[in-house]
């Protein structure tokens, strides 16, 4: 019998779901299970909520600095109002921490219930400078039949578009959905939806975004394609709740910009991303 690869067993120790075949094998294989268990001791010891990336900020009482100053002899002093303000500034609910599902019992510790922890700048803890991604374990991938985009496939996709209430694309009627991904809400937003990349027989492409999100008063939704480093991005256009289809620039490499991001933008004339993202998905192209 084919055992799971060492890498798969490592992921299993982290309690990531495995592909069906591996999961089935693991369930019945003593040897693989023992391997996972031996790797899991470290996971269970360290992946506990008490050691997780910083959550809610709490300003320490003044005595803490006094003790530090006394012990170190440092005479420069932090401004108490700034210390207090830095803790209060944490208004952004941040996703990545959440209730660690693989928490093991912590010893003799009464952790206060921090149900919806707050991270001021989660990037700081990881050493990266990126927006937080909510854990999301099931990217949805739809790749249409690889067959030549014949009339049958094209007709089907058009029907889907029409059902979704899309605006007519107005070029070649024959289209093919080459990739699709669920847009999951970020932080505590309730925006969600779905993005599909449509390729027409003439080679032009469009991004169809079906967005379920609340209406905005003096702001608007904007759709972006962002690279994996979350550094560079392409604005795709203005969206609204419902389904909107955007033309994609010819030659745009979706492999380079796989992240579909929906942001909320103020009407301020600044073309840059506001930094406020409400939903995201990663295209598997």
């Amino acid at each position, binding site marked *: 019998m084919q055992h799971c690869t060492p890498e798969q067993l490592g992921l299993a120790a982290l309690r990531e779901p495995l592909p069906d075949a591996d999961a089935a094998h693991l369930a019945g294989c003593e040897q693989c299970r023992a391997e996972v268990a031996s790797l899991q001791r470290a996971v269970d010891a360290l992946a506990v909520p008490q050691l997780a990336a910083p959550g809610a900020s709490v300003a320490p009482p003044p005595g803490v600095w006094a003790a530090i100053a006394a012990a170190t002899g440092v005479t420069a002093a932090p401004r108490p109002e700034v210390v207090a303000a*830095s803790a209060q500034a944490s208004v952004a609910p941040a996703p990545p921490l959440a209730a660690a599902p693989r928490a093991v019992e912590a010893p003799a510790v009464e952790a206060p219930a921090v149900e919806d922890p707050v991270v001021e700048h989660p990037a700081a803890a990881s*050493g990266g400078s990126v927006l937080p991604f909510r854990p999301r374990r099931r990217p949805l991938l739809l790749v249409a039949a690889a067959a030549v985009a014949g009339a049958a496939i094209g007709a089907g996709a058009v029907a889907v578009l029409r059902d979704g209430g899309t605006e007519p694309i107005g070029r070649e009627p024959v289209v093919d959905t080459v990739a699709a991904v669920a847009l999951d809400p970020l932080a505590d937003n309730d925006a969600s939806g779905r993005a599909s990349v449509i390729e027409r027989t003439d080679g032009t492409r469009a991004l169809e975004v079906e967005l379920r999100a609340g209406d905005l008063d003096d702001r608007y939704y904007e759709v972006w394609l962002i690279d994996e480093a979350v550094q560079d991005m392409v604005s795709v256009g203005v969206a609204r709740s419902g389904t909107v289809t955007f033309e994609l620039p010819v030659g745009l490499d979706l492999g380079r910009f796989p992240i579909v991001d929906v942001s909320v933008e103020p009407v301020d004339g600044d073309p*840059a991303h506001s930094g406020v993202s409400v939903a995201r998905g990663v295209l598997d192209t």
Partner: protein
Amino acid sequence: MTGLLALRPGRMGSVGLVEPVPTQRVTAEPDDREVGRRFAAGEEQALAWAYERWAGQVHGMAVRAFGPGPDAEDVTQQTFMSAWTGRGGYNPDKGPLPAWLVGVCRHKIADTWAKRDRQRRETEAAMSEAQSMPAGPVTAGVDTAVADRVLLLDELDLLGQPQRGIIELAFFEDLTHAQIAVRTGLPLGTVKSHIRRTLERLRNRLEVDGAALHA
């Protein structure tokens, strides 16, 4: 629709860099990187700035672990004191200061758990002695997870990059290997094999030193 992160002004079209504290600072104050560099250089004002900016995060972790009170305050105090006296161990080119402070804080939390566990065992030993019972070895009843954490955090400190960053994202931010690949820009296969090798390395550390500890 909460404001997630403030963008650093002047980087049009980028959400890559974030300002930790979205309030306006006096322009004379250095940015976080500069604070990190001056901290490493031993400039006292940098300790005060670091405290202004990140004591809330550190104390938040301590409070999450121990609840508000003396234990949490002690952890926060120890974190900044150790960070200052051990600043030679911080390399500003290798990562931001707040991330390093968070790492120091994890050690202090684990140390506090270990101290409590030791006190518990000593109390039990003293009680059995007072009752003229044969005193077992003091190591009896040691809490394995508590001891493991101290060892494992030490081992994490010895990891190079990107191994350390990868396993920390998995352990402390609960990211899947696919999300870690996106976050770090590394190929999936690379992330998977680093995870595997790091878990093996941690297992070895527990088998070697952990066994001795409990002997």
